[in-house]
């Protein structure tokens, strides 16, 4: 059965990864509007994944991915030096944001919510409904399927499509 994230922790590895994920989440939420930044991050993470032969990657790939990505973000935020992957303008901005002053975070959160609200409104009704039931109301795929009288497969299909649409939309037009 489907439950919300905190209850889904399967072991300590994921718990540890969650710690790092806060940094990562903040970074991604800020940068998702700047494709180049996310690409640079992914390139660096990719390199690190290629280098490891650790069983950790195979056992807990998702936790491992988050941890690695969060490390990259963390190292980047900590280092004032210009990193090869990131331009100096970005480094300056990140350094000034690293303190994470409250008003900044709130403003980020608000602009993110506005973006999401706008993007959700552009989705077809069925996709909107599936997302609302899953994310807002916390229903499982099976419960959503029963409610809408469609198959679980269809629920998944439209859910993934809706998420992909949100990802692909232009996040800049505020």
């Amino acid at each position, binding site marked *: 059965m489907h439950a919300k994230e905190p209850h889904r922790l399967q072991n300590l590895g994921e718990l540890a990864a969650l710690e790092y994920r806060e940094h990562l989440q903040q970074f991604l939420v800020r940068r998702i509007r700047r494709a180049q930044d996310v690409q640079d991050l992914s390139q660096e993470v990719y*390199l690190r*994944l290629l280098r490891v032969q650790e069983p950790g990657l195979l*056992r807990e790939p998702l936790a491992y991915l988050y941890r690695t990505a969060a490390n990259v973000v963390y190292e980047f935020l900590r280092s004032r030096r210009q990193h090869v*992957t990131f331009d100096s303008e970005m480094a300056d901005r990140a350094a000034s944001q690293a303190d994470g002053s409250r008003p900044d975070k709130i403003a980020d959160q608000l602009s993110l919510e506005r973006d999401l609200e706008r993007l959700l409104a552009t989705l077809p009704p*069925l996709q909107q409904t599936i*997302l*609302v039931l899953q994310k807002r109301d916390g229903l499982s795929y099976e419960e959503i399927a029963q409610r809408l009288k469609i198959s679980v497969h269809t629920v998944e299909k439209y859910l993934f499509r809706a998420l992909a649409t*949100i990802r692909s939309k232009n996040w*800049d037009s505020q």
Partner: protein
Amino acid sequence: MHRNPRDDKPLAEQAAKWLSDLEHGDRHKQAEFAAWLKESPRHIEEVLCAAAIGKALDRLDPQRWPDVSGFLANPVGTVVPLAEDTSPPRAVRYRPYRKLWIAGITAATVCFALALILPYLTGWHKYATTVGEQRTLTLDDGSLACLNTHSQLTARFTSSTREVRLEDGEALFKVRRDPTRPFLVKTDDVVIRALGTQFNVYRKAEATVVSVVEGAVEVATRQGSQRLAAGEEARIAPDTVTQVRQVDVTRMATWRQRRLVFELKPLAEVAQEFNRYNREPRIRVEGHARSKRFSGIFDVDDPRSLMNLLATYSDLAVEEHDGEVVIQTRPVVAK
């Protein structure tokens, strides 16, 4: 147990499905997912973005969600047909080809390569490979020289010396020990003296790169000489200080397995490497795309794998015309 093929779905959808499967405790998918992540940095990018969006939606203020009560009241019969879906596929868009030849540059490159073919000297033996070809030579003293694509070397062995000139391209040397006759490899910028060893020399247009796989070498440049040990790589260019860095020896001379390994290399350099091995398609990178950095492991004989990776970036336009592939940045289109 069997999953629908993901390949025909946009990467963002595939990423969302992976996250869903894994979060629903599909534990036996872990190794498969790890392998998928290692396939491409684009997969990593999409998973990270999908996770960020998923979490942002989890936290979204309930008042911001669209009102779906009308739809819920009458879901049957209101199922939206696929055609009304507004999500555009994030697929490759081949743009109409723009005729912007840089014929001059190509011609200059060819002339430069021709100029490198030096007059034949007596006592020197010449060995060469064409584009895409690799050869292993046994030299007169029993040492081996593996010659990479589009490369040329000349060798002269006398009773007192073993001398090899790398005229162009790249070669890996496995040197047979002979204390009475030093083994020397020369380019315009450097003389490398083998100290019983295995090392790679890559003569690029702008620099000579020496990588020591085993043993040690001594490199002499205009600035002086220094010793390189196994795992060290020196970049020697005229008028600049020789830079030495540590390199994983298993990543040296991967060309012998016909592999190209890039670590955050500018796209212009990645394209240049592919062009060393393949006459077709020639890859040309223009404008800002030239300095965009990429990582990956590729088969030298499969430039398509690079095209396929690049085509997944929405900010890059990949156009093909008459055996030439042109890559440039695509202006951001507001949707």
